């Protein structure tokens, strides 16, 4: 292969791409191609984003969003994984509940926010509950899918050695479903951020990165704050997703064909 050092190259190229976009935006703003009042200068935005790191109000908003996100995901896993196993291993229950699930699943979770706003007085609880509802679907479906994918031969092998049902579940079904569950949780983490931030945007008054955007909307240089906050939200999204991918790669090295469902 004639490539010398692809990794170095890729990093360099990527950095150049990011820097290139920055320069193009900056020049477009400075030459008046893009009105800086409509879209602030790239350097202004970057400066604002840097300043946000020391902004206590912003940081506590980020902490609130991430707290709801983490708590929501935790509840989701605690709820959806056992539910997935239950449905996956009891076909009768699954076929009975399937129509209900099929009716519930296409409901866009965002549509529940106005209702939830009326029901909950505590905004944080509401956020967590909405996150759990929305994030349950990918985890549940991936768990059930993964369970169907378990190699029957592996189960029979264990059974032929005289292992009981629970041993088969613990030693074969759970480990071979785990990579699918992990993929589901990774998908759910992105959805959880979307729903959490949407709830903040629509809820108003509560804490969170979405509320921060809402509150800075009144400023004269609102767009600057909005983009700076969005950049940090992107960083958070990228870091969380990256951590999940990294964890999946480390834990499930044996699972070569990491399949994506949903």
């Amino acid at each position, binding site marked *: 292969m004639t490539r010398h050092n692809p990794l170095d190259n890729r990093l360099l*190229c990527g950095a150049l791409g990011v820097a290139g976009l920055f320069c193009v935006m900056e020049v477009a703003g400075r030459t008046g191609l893009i009105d800086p009042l409509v*879209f602030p200068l790239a350097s202004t935005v970057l400066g604002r984003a840097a300043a946000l790191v020391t902004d206590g109000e912003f940081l506590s908003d980020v902490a609130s969003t991430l707290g709801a996100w983490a708590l929501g995901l935790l509840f989701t896993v605690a709820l959806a994984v056992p539910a997935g196993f239950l449905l996956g291993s009891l076909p009768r229950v699954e076929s009975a509940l399937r129509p*209900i699930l099929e009716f519930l699943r296409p*409901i866009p979770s965002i549509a529940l926010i106005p209702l939830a706003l009326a029901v909950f007085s505590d905004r944080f609880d509401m956020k967590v509950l909405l996150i759990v509802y929305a994030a349950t679907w990918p985890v549940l479906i991936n768990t059930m899918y993964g369970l169907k994918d378990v190699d029957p031969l592996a189960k029979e092998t264990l059974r032929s050695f005289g292992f009981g049902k629970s041993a088969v579940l613990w030693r074969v079904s759970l480990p071979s479903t785990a990579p699918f569950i992990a993929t589901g949780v990774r998908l759910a983490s992105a959805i959880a951020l979307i729903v959490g931030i949407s709830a903040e945007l629509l809820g108003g008054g509560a804490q969170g990165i979405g509320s921060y955007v809402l509150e800075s909307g009144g400023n004269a240089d609102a767009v600057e704050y909005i983009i700076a*906050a969005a950049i940090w939200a992107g960083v958070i999204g*990228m870091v969380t997703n990256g951590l999940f991918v990294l964890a999946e790669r480390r834990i499930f090295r044996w699972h070569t064909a990491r399949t994506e469902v949903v």
Partner: protein
Amino acid sequence: MNGLLRGAVRLWPVPVVLLLWELLTRGIEMLSFPPPSQIATSMYTMWLTGPAERLWLTDAALTNIPVSVGRLLSGWVLAGVVGIVLGVALGRSPLLFRFIDPLVQFARAIPPPMLLAFFMALFSIGPRMQISFIAFGIVWPVLINASEGARQVDRQHLDTARVFGLSGGERLFRIILPSAMPKIFAGLRVSLSLALILMVLSELVGSTDGIGFQLLDAQRSYDFSGVWGTIVVLGVLGYVFNSAFLAAERRVLSWHRSAKQTT
């Protein structure tokens, strides 16, 4: 007929759950949890009490639903076209990919709601803002899948195309796009369900019509059966879109499913 009957039998849990729900909500008598019968009545008055010559559809049904569906589909088509074009270009050019990929990864990691305020500032409230917001938020799954699909075209397929002297255009339209199609469809499907979510969000925040606006309107006037009824309609819409998409996918990708089963 037999299949239809069996399908109906399969749905038995639905009336059971509805009945339980009815009893429960009548029992607790909470304003925000109206019984399903009341929701159904409210849905009927909201959408189906118009004049007979308009199929009994009300003004609300005739304006809000088409407006929302129009925005959703325009945003989706826009994202589809942009995503496929850019994705295939990225997939076929390793150099371009290396430069652009970090930007793509970053842009897709931004939770779309964070950008709603930005799009509102840029375009002010209206269909232009909604469509571009939806398109920007959902373009990434299509783009990333298209680029992956275009990158993973079998080398032997490309060799065969070269040996038999297919032109660049023929290679693109007859080899690369068809091979990438299964991935592209996977991306389009994710985007479609995301489009519904963003459509509702954009209408809840910045709109004067559409289903999301109607939802907000019902909530503000404490019409909770209206809120529930609107949620049901959104669920039905989601179900219809997904089913229609799956049917289209089955047709277009019939070769893919069967080819995978036999080889």
